[in-house]
C-alpha cells in the first residue's frame, strides 16, 4: 500500500506522473500569485490610504486586474496544458508490453497479453511491470464504470462498459505503488485497492517466464486443501491454472500467495487474514460476491489457507 506522505501526486515515480507533478507545482505557484494580488487589492480597497483607494476605484482596475491579468495567466496555462495533454496522450507504438485490466465490483481482473493480444497470464488486483519502459494498459469494465488510478505512476482513466481506454504508465525505479478505484461504483467502492510492483527488467523477465511456464504445467498435488477447494465450491468461481478449478467469476488464484494484499488491497496477505476472508468475507467487505463459508470448520479453513499459500 502507499502512504499519504509525501502526497503521491507530488511524488511521482515515472515520467507520466512526473510531468503532471511539475504542472501541479506551477499551478500552485500561479494560484498563490493570483491570490496575493486579489487579497492585496482587497486589503487596500478596505483599509488602504485614501489616495490608493481612489486609484483602485475605477474601471481601469477592472480592466487590468479582472481582464488583462487573468487573460495573460490563462493563456499561458492553456498553451502549456494543451501541449502537455498532447504529449501525454500521443499515440502508442504498438510494441509495448500490454496488460488488460478489467474493473469488476469491487476488484480488478488482470491479464498479461502477448504480441498478438492474447491473454497469456491471468492475475488479479496486482500488476507487475518492468522499470524504465512504458506499459500500455487496456482498461475495460465488466459491470459498472470504474476508474483506474495509481497516482505515483499516472493520472486516472475511467473503465467504461462497451469501451476500451488505453493508458500508459511507467516506473523509473523498482518499487511498490498503491492505487484505488476513483469512480463511485456502488457498495464497497471504498474498498477497491490495487497494487503495482515495478521490477528491474531482468527480474521482471524471469517472473514472466516463470509464470508462462506455470500456466502450461499442472502443479504438484495440493492434498486435502486442493480437494476441499473443489468440493466446498471455491472452484466454481476461482481459477487455479492446471487444476480443475476453472471458475471465472472471481479473482484468479493461481498466484494468490505472491500477492501483497487480500480483498483488493484491504488486508495484508497471511494465513490469519486468509482464514478470516474465506470464513466470512462479508464481515470485511460487505456485498462482495463471495458468500460467507461459516459451514467450514476451523481445520478446513486452515487447510484451504495452507493450500492457497502454495499458489505462487
Amino acid at each position: 500500500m502507499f502512504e499519504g506522505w509525501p502526497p503521491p501526486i507530488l511524488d511521482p515515480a515515472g515520467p507520466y506522473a512526473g510531468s503532471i507533478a511539475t504542472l501541479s507545482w506551477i499551478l500552485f505557484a500561479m494560484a498563490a500569485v493570483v491570490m496575493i494580488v486579489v487579497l492585496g487589492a482587497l486589503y487596500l480597497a478596505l483599509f488602504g490610504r485614501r489616495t490608493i483607494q481612489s486609484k483602485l476605484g475605477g474601471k481601469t482596475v477592472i480592466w487590468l486586474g479582472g481582464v488583462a491579468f487573468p487573460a495573460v495567466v490563462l493563456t499561458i496555462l492553456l498553451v502549456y496544458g494543451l501541449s502537455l495533454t498532447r504529449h501525454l496522450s500521443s499515440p502508442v507504438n504498438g510494441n509495448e508490453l500490454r496488460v488488460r485490466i478489467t474493473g469488476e465490483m469491487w476488484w480488478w481482473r488482470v491479464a498479461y497479453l502477448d504480441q498478438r493480444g492474447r491473454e497469456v497470464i491471468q492475475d488479479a488486483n496486482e500488476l507487475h511491470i518492468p522499470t524504465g519502459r512504458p506499459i500500455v494498459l487496456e482498461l475495460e469494465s465488466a459491470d459498472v464504470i470504474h476508474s483506474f488510478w495509481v497516482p505515483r505512476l499516472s493520472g486516472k482513466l475511467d473503465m467504461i462498459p462497451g469501451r476500451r481506454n488505453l493508458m500508459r504508465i511507467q516506473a523509473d525505479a523498482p518499487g511498490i505503488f498503491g492505487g484505488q478505484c476513483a469512480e463511485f461504483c456502488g457498495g464497497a467502492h471504498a474498498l477497491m485497492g490495487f497494487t503495482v510492483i515495478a521490477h528491474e527488467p531482468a527480474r521482471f523477465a524471469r517472473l514472466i517466464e516463470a509464470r508462462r511456464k506455470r500456466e502450461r504445467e499442472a502443479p504438484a498435488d495440493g492434498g486435502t486443501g486442493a480437494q476441499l477447494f473443489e468440493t466446498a465450491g471455491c472452484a466454481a468461481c476461482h481459477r487455479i491454472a492446471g487444476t480443475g478449478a476453472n471458475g471465472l467469476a472471481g479473482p484468479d488464484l493461481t498466484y494468490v500467495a505472491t500477492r501483497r494484499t487480500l480483498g483488493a488491497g484491504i488486508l495484508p496477505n497471511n494465513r490469519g487474514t486468509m482464514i478470516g476472508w474465506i470464513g466470512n468475507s462479508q464481515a470485511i467487505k460487505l456485498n462482495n460476491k463471495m458468500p460467507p463459508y461459516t459451514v467450514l470448520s476451523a481445520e478446513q479453513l486452515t487447510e484451504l489457507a495452507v493450500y492457497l499459500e502454495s499458489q505462487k
Partner: protein
Amino acid sequence: MTSETGFDPKLYDRFPTAEARSQSEVEELERIWAAPRGWRRLTIVNNNYVGLWYVATAFLFFLLAGVLALVIRTQLALPLLGVLPQETYNQFFTMHGTVMMFLFAVPMMEAIGVMLLPQMLAARDLPFPRLSAYAFWAYFVGGLCFFCSIFVGLAPNGGWFMYPPLTSTTYSPGINADFWLLGIGFIEISAIAGAIEILVGILKTRAPGMTLARMPLFAWAMLVFAGMILIAFPAVILATLLLELERALNWPFFDATRGGDPMLWQHLFWFFGHPEVYIIFLPAAGLVSMMVASLAKTELVGYQLIVLALLGTGFLSFGVWAHHMFATGMPTLSVGFFAAASMSVSLPAGIQVFSWIATLAVGKPSYNTPTLFVVGGLVTFVMGGLTGVMVAMVPFDWQAHDTHFIVAHLHYVLIGGAVFPVFAAFYYWSGMASRRRLSERMGRWVFWLMFAGMHITFLPMHLTGLMGMPRRVYTYLPGKDWEWTNLLSTVGAFILAAGILLFLIDLARNFRFTTENDVGNLYGGGTLEWLPTGLYSTRSIPVVKSRQPLWDDPKLARHVAEGRYLLPYSATGRRETLITSPVRAEPQYLQVMVGPSVWPFLGAVFTAGFFLLLTVQAYALSIACLPLATLSILRWLWDTDRQVPQKEVDVGAGIMLPTYVTGPRAHGWWATICVLVVAGMIFLMAVFSYLFVYGIHPSFWTIPTDRWWAFPVAAGYAAGASLTLYGRHLMGREGASKWSPTAALLFASAFIIASFATDWFTWQAQGFDPEVSAQGAFAQAMLALEGQMIAVIVLMAGYLAARTASGLVTRPRNTTFDVVSLFLLYTAAQGTATAILLRFFPASG
C-alpha cells in the same frame, strides 16, 4: 430619445403629479390585495407570502442536507469508523449532494427572486401568481416526500450524478434510484415553472423607464439564470426520462451490450450539471453586486462590465460540461475545446471580482454582518475559482478528478459563491420582511464561526485529495496519513454548523414576519424594493430615471407613497399590474391578475402524488392522481385570460393603456414561447442522443424499410399547420362565425393526431423491438416524446372548445387561442422532424 413601442417618453414628465390623492384608494388596494386567513392561507398566491414560504422551505432543505453532511464528516473523522454503514453512507452522500443542488441551491435562488423581484421592479406581483404558488407547492410537497425516503432506507444511493449502468436495474434493483429519477425529474418541472415566471416578470413587469441599462443587477442575473434553466434543465429531464424508461421497460439507452452507451448519460447530465453551477452562482453574484454598492454607499463600478460578465457566463458555461469527463478517455482535440472554454469562463468571474473590489475601494464600507459575508464570500470564491482553473488543466485533472481535492474545490466555489452571499442577503434584506432587525452582534459571530469552520473543513481537504483519497468512499484504511486532515475537516464542519445554529437562534429571537410594519432599509439601499410597501407592493409605480432611484431622488419614496406616480389606485377594481416593454420598459398595457385560488395548491399536490406514488409502485393511485392534477390545473387556468369591461383605462396623469393585448406584446405569449423553448430543447437533446449513440455503435443499427411513410406523415402535419394558420386568419376576420376559428384549430389537431397515429403504427410495423436494440428504444422514445405533445394537444383542443362554447374566446384576438395555435404549430414541426429522423437516419448501413 427613441422609443421601442411608440410610447412618448415625454409623458414621464407628468410625474410626480401635483394633486393630492384620496386615502380611499389605498383602502381599496388593501381590500383587493388582502391575503386570505386561516386554512384559506393555502390559497394565497401573492409573492410576499409565497416568496417567504419558498425561502423558508429552501433553507429547511439546506439545514437537512447540512445535517447529513455532519454525519458524513463524523464517519470520515477517523479510519474504519462505524457511524454510517456502507449502504447508509452511500445514501447519505447521494442525498447530501442531491438535496443541496436540487432542493436548496436552485430553489433558494428562485425563492429570493420571487420574494424580491416584484418589489425591485416595482411590480404589484409576478405576472403569473398562481404559477408561483403551483411551483412552490409542488416543490414543498415533492421535496419533503423525496427527503423522507432516507428515513426508510430507500433514498437513492448512486451519487447525485446517477451514472448508469450503476443506476440501471441490474446494479440498482431497488426503488432507490426511481426516487431520484421521478422525484428530481418532477422538481425540475417546478424549477422550470419558476424560471418562466421570473423571466417574464423581469422582461415585462419593470417600472416604466427602467431600461435594461438601469435594471438592478439582481434582475439581470435572474434573467440570465432563468434563460439558462430553460436551456439546461431539458437535458437532465430527458436523461431522467430515458433512464427511467430503461429501468421500467428494459429499453437499452445506456446499455452497451445492446447498442446503448453509458457515456450518453454523462453528456446529458453534465450539459445540465455544469451550467447548473453557474445557475446557482449568478443570482448570488447579482445579490453581491447590489449589496456591495449599498454597503459601500456608492454606485457600482463597472455596471456594464458586470452585465457582460453575467451574459458571457450564461453562454460560455454551456461549453464546459465535458470537463467533468476529462478522465473518460475522450479524444484529445475535443478535450482541448472543453479545457479552453473552461479557461474563458473564468474571465467573467474575474471581471465581477475586481468590480466588487473597485466598488469597495471607492466607497466607505462599514464593518457589519452583510459586509463581512460579502467580503468573506469573495475571498472564498476566488480560492475556489483558482482550484477551478487548476482542474481545467486536463493533465492535473487526471490526478485530481474524483478525489477530495474536487470536494474541497466545489465547496469553496459554492459556499463562497452562493452560501455566503445568501447569508449576506438574509441580513441585508431581512428588514423587508421582519418587524425586528437581526442581531448585529450575533451576526458577526455567525459569520466568523461559519467562515472559520468553512476554511478549517475544506482547506485541509485539498491536501487529503493530493494525498490520494478518492471521493465517495464510506471509509478508509489506516496507515495512509489521511487521519489528520480528515479529523481537522470534521472539526471544521462542526464549527461551521455552530455558526448556522447561532443564526437559527438569532432568527428565532428576532425574525418576526410582517408585510407592512417592517424595519425597512437598514443598510441604505438605493433600489426600488426599499420604497414603502404593502401587500399590493408600492402605492404607485414610480418612473425610473437612474440605477439607484432612491439615492438620486430623495423625495421619491414620499411621492410614491402619496400616489403621485402611475397606478395609484386600482383602475379596474381587481388585482392588476403594469406591463412594460422588455427593452426600454415603456408602458404597454394593464395586466388584470387572478387572485387567490386553491387550484394551484391542489394541482401541485396531485402532480406530486402522481410522481411519488409512481415511485413506490402504487400504480392505481398514481394513475388516479393524473386526471385530478390535470383538472385542477385546467380549473385554475379557466379563471385566467378574461377581459374586463374597461377596454382602456387611465393609469395616472391621463395616460391611457389597454387592458387586453395579444401576440408578442402579451405576457402570456412570452410564457408560451418559454414553454416551447423547453419542449424544443428536450427534443433537440433527444435528437442529439439518437445521433450520438448511432455514432458510437453503428453496428447495432439497421436501415428502416418503407421509408416513404415519412412523406404522408409530414404532409399530414403540414396540413395541420396550415389549418392552424388559417384559423388564426379567421380569428381576425369580421365575418367569420363564433366557432369557425376554433373549428379550424380542432380540424388542425385532428390532422396532427392522425399524422402521429400514422407515424406510430407504420413504425411499429417495421418491427424494431425497443427492448432489443438502442435503435428501437430511441425510436420509440422519440415517438413517445411526440406522443406527449399530442396528449397536450388533445387537452388543449378540448379546453379551447369549452371556452369557445362559454363565449370566452374573444374576437378579434384571444390569448388562449394564440397559445393553442402556437402549440399546434410546434407539435406539427416536431412530429415532422421525428418522422424524417427515424426513417432517414441511419441513411446507409
